[in-house]
């Protein structure tokens, strides 16, 4: 025991820790930099970069670290690169860690909900803004445990630097054992030193997890704050459900307000007057002969649609009829095979010669032309509060100051009746509240056109009305140009100026909303409408 303590406190071994940490730090730091580059290459749209990164991964993940150490130390000098031992070991460790870290990064990035990425694109975020503001903050949170793992493994792997004469802890231990024959005392002591180091890494990992925990209430206003102690292994806090959204129990003032309002449906005269005005307006969105196929399956088959400023068009039709694809083509979230799309007279995503722009340029154009989009699955940025979901993109895309962006966000939250939920995270909001925030977010930059892709389909029936009410006001009070794909026939009748019925990627019938819906000419339309009405019946009876 006394021998063990003697070696445990021996300065010679303790000094070895310094080199162990140096090699580990070089390996992890270098590995992170290399890993970032590798992950970037693998996720790149240029296939050659991806292929090079793949080849690197295969080689460095597939060969033992000990060989890489010896290579960096003994082979590189033959081509004129003679690194000091610590650097050679650090380089080998970094090269070895890089593919593992790259895969972690890639998993983190790919793990971020695709819907949020699409929402960011629709808001006009360039790929780099999207990465920095939406993907990275969420990916990093999910990667911390894996990174902690990697740090521990790098620390232990640094012991292999002993084969290239780095005087780190393991090499010092073996030399000491050879000269004193106190084999076990020495290795127990150095084993304990390694344990202390890896324990320290675990503590740092838990601290960072706690620091980045979105539920760690920053203002202490609501819920119970999650303490660092909750991360101790013997604590059984259910990290997913314990901090139940407070919002569920808070009465929603807007709900009451909305149901009190008399139906805003227009009278027949008002409709006629609107139609006359709209007919004189300029064209807001125009698609001509739009075609698109996925492989052999045709999604859009020569689709023509014209929407004038101030007009509200409802797209109806069975699932798979091309409604969503059409909307996504309008703001160029998706490419198409033939035909043209013009928004505000411009071909979004193409330069004057009709050449396709880079993703970055398309993003900028989306922001200038102003096409807002609302999604079926809301697609709010999960790591941002309701207010930040609205204010953030205004700052990052439109260059607003924080004060202006916050003011605009507050204004819009008030309009959708969610002022009291401004600081809540999306996952603490009900579906209806989330969709209202999403609408506010889409409206924030004052878009010229708002595209709504089945905005109520993912909602529980009792939450549908609050969202429809918000949309109805936008149409009637604000005169906003909107294209809505929906299954809500009655809503379409009340709000839309025109409905277009899609089937198999073409419009098979279109016309004034009330006329088409009450008196369809195409048998397909008629059948679809009668099925939808039949579905409605139980609710109507109730």
């Amino acid at each position, binding site marked *: *025991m*006394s*021998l063990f303590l003697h070696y445990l406190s*021996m300065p*010679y071994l303790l000094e070895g820790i310094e080199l162990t940490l140096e090699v580990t730090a070089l390996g992890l730091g270098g590995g992170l930099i290399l890993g970032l580059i590798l992950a970037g290459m693998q996720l790149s749209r240029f296939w050659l970069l991806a292929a090079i990164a793949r080849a690197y991964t295969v080689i460095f993940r597939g060969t033992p670290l000990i060989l890489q150490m*010896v290579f960096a*130390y*003994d*082979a590189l*000098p*033959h081509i004129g690169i*003679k690194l000091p*031992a610590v650097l050679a070991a650090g380089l080998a460790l970094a090269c070895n860690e890089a593919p593992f870290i790259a895969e972690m990064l890639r998993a983190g990035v790919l793990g971020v909900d695709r819907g949020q990425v699409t929402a960011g694109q629709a808001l006009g975020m360039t790929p780099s803004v999207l990465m920095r503001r939406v993907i990275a903050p969420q990916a990093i949170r999910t990667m911390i445990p894996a990174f902690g793992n990697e740090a521990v493994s790098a620390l232990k792997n640094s012991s292999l630097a002993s*084969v*290239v*004469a780095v*005087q780190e802890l393991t*090499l*010092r231990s*073996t*030399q*000491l*054992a*050879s*000269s*004193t*024959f*106190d*084999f*076990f*005392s020495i290795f127990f002591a150095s084993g304990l030193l390694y344990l202390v180091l890896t324990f320290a890494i675990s503590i740092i990992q838990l601290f960072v997890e706690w620091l980045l925990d979105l539920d760690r209430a920053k203002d202490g206003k609501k819920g119970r704050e999650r303490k660092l102690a909750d991360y101790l292994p013997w604590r059984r806090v259910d990290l997913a459900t314990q901090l139940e959204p407070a919002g569920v129990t808070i009465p929603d003032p807007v709900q009451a307000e909305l149901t009190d309002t008399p139906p805003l449906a227009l009278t027949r005269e008002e409709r006629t007057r609107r139609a006359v005005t709209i007919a004189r307006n300029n064209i807001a969105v125009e698609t001509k002969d739009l075609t698109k196929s996925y492989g052999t399956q045709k999604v859009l088959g020569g689709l023509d649609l014209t929407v004038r400023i101030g007009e509200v068009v409802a797209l109806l039709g069975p699932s798979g009829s091309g409604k969503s694809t059409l909307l996504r083509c309008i703001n160029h979230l998706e490419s198409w095979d033939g035909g043209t799309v013009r928004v505000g007279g411009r071909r979004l995503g193409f330069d004057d010669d009709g050449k396709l722009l880079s993703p970055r340029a398309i993003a900028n154009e989306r922001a200038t032309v102003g096409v807002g989009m609302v999604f079926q699955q809301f697609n709010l940025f999960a790591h941002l509060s309701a207010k930040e979901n609205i204010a953030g993109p205004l700052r990052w895309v439109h260059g607003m100051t924080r004060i202006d962006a916050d003011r605009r966000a507050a204004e819009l939250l008030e309009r959708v009746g969610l002022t009291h939920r401004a600081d809540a995270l999306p996952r603490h909001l009900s579906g209806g509240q989330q969709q209202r925030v999403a609408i506010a977010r889409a409206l924030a930059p004052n878009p010229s056109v708002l595209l709504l892709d089945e905005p109520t389909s993912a909602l529980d029936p009792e939450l549908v009305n609050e969202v429809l009410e918000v949309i109805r006001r936008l149409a009637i009070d604000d005169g906003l140009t909107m294209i809505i794909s929906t299954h809500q026939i009655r809503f379409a009748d009340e709000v839309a100026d025109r409905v277009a019925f899609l089937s198999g990627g073409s419009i098979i019938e279109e016309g004034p909303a009330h006329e088409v819906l009450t008196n369809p000419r195409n048998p397909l339309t008629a059948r679809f409408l009668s099925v939808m009405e039949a579905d409605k019946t139980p609710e109507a009876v109730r």
Partner: protein
Amino acid sequence: MERRVLSQTHRGMARESLPSRKLALGALIAFGALAAAPLSAQAAAPAACAALQEKYPDWKGKTLVNAINPHTPGYETIDPKDPNKYIGFDIDIGEAIGECLGFKLTYKPVTFAALLTTLAAGQADIVISDIYATKERAKAADFITYSKVFDGVLVAKGNPKGINGINMSMCGAAAAENTGYVEVPLIQALMPECKKAGKPEPTVQLYDNNANCIQAILAGRADTYVNDVNTVDSAVKAYPDKLEKAIAVTIPYSVGIAVPKDKPKFRDAVLAALIEVQKAGTHMELLKKHGLDVNNFKEPDILTAD
């Protein structure tokens, strides 16, 4: 607890075996003459060394890197009292050569198998680490031989397998060896012979340092470890209750200082300096200082691949 008592016994034994410890224990008077001897001997040939420094000026005032496998007590290990230093016969003779040619040495500890690759990669300038000079190894480096080789056969106390050398008595035994040791092919050469005699073949377990080979016998994993007789002796002194030396065998090699193949001038300078060091009596004094057999002494030769 048992281990603690044991270890301390070992330490005691090790202390007795190492002259440096005796010095520390106050046996300075007895060894005073010996310790002083190299210095006075060195002083006896300053003129010859000065002439060598004039003839080979390239290394004067330089600090060279000596790659060693510091797991061989008596030849090269770290100093248990000051682990930042290396001690042993090879360390002292290297520094005597350096002193004669006017260079200093720093040390780079590597595994035995990596000694010559480290030299070839230019990560070291010289290797003085109880390495046997063979034709095979001379393909990777030039050698200046300086010591004869006597090997000892280390076995567990009582020699339960009755091993008495690298011969048929080793059939069916497990031999622990260091990766890259010359004993490895010698034991491997036994395999077909044992087979021919209808006996089980010997097996070789490869470790990366001396201490691990000794531990293999202590743990009962290996039956024998054949290595330099002085190394075997120090292991027996450290674990007198558990180990013994079966026999000393002669191996047809010499120990050599390895230098890069592409630096014949350096090789010649080291050879000339070693001759001076031997002439001054330093070589012999160092053998005695480190408790090594004086019969190891050998006049230097050059061994190259061609």
